[in-house]
């Protein structure tokens, strides 16, 4: 099933979150980008903004990030952030 993404969210001190997701939305340099499975490989700088992850179970996770970068490569999304505030969970 190629419809899920492997997401790793890491900061300098450790892994913040890791798991399967349906969709990731991140504040890229040119504006918010949405990533679904099968996205083309991309390396992008992140601005300050909100990073949202919709997990495979349909849960919505969100973090506020201060900056960092994001790489997508064969359905593996790695988000590297400098600093982020606690995740806020909201029902979908």
């Amino acid at each position: 099933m190629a419809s899920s993404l492997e997401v790793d969210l890491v900061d300098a001190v450790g892994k913040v979150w890791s798991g399967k997701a349906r969709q990731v939305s991140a504040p890229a340099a040119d504006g918010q980008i949405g990533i679904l499975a099968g996205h083309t490989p991309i390396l992008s700088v992140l601005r300050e903004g909100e990073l949202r992850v919709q997990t495979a179970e349909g849960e919505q996770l969100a973090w506020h990030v201060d900056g960092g970068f994001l790489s997508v490569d064969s359905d593996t999304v790695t988000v590297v952030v400098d600093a982020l505030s606690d995740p806020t969970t909201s029902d979908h």
Partner: protein
Amino acid sequence: MAGSQRVYKQRIKSTQSLKKMFRAQELIAASRIGRARDRVALASPYSRAITRAVSAVATHSDVTHPFLAQRTDTNRVALLLIASDRGMAGAYSATVLRETERQIEKLQAEGREVDLYVSGRRAVSYFSFRQRELAGQWIGQSDAPQYETALEIADTLLERFRAPADEGGVAEVHVVFTQFVNMVTQRPRVIRLLPLEVVEGVAPAGDGGPLPLYDFEPDPETVLDALLPRYFRARIFASLLQAAASELAARQRAMHTATDNAEDLIRTYTRLANQARQGEITQEISEIVSGADALASAS
């Protein structure tokens, strides 16, 4: 004779209290080392992700960046030494200091001027005792480094690397730290961090496999510009964490040996004290007996 017994008793007592202290230090180091190793492991996904990204940019575009270019306008170099704040870690500080001296000598033989940046109180006092000038120093958390400190160190060094030659800019940044190989082996390492070695970047990082053709947002230059300082900071932080784990491992081992030595000493002194006591008793008996003999022959 009574005197020597008392002296031995005193020594046994003081060695016993020393032993307790060594044992406590050993246990403290042992309990902290697990955490220090965890932190090394926890920080590695970050540096792995960054290394991979740097390799991707370096292989797929021919961008140049000041961090990758050799500077020729100055022969000043910065050397960062990561040592410990406290002693009681055996040869840990001495080893890394010796390595630093060797590196300084080598750089000076190449006609370079070395600016010393030092982390760890032991190293700071080593150099200030010898009245050697330090360009920067950080003390207070060698066994549990915070990311903020790593940031501060990294940003200081980056700033110096970016500065023009007449304002004290440096052409290279070297780091001397102790690599944590395992609980028994910690190895001093010298690495050149700046300018970054592209060879290292091009090699596929970690899990290997050909890197995909990435799109860069907004463009390769900006991505590289955002990546390289982070890469540098991650390397500094990783060195600090490695050094912290090495320090604790060295301390645990040194304190274990010290405890064993204290036990040996206590055993030796106990034997000597027993001998002294026995000698005293023997002497007392012979005095009594000879006294009784004298009385008997007198009557």
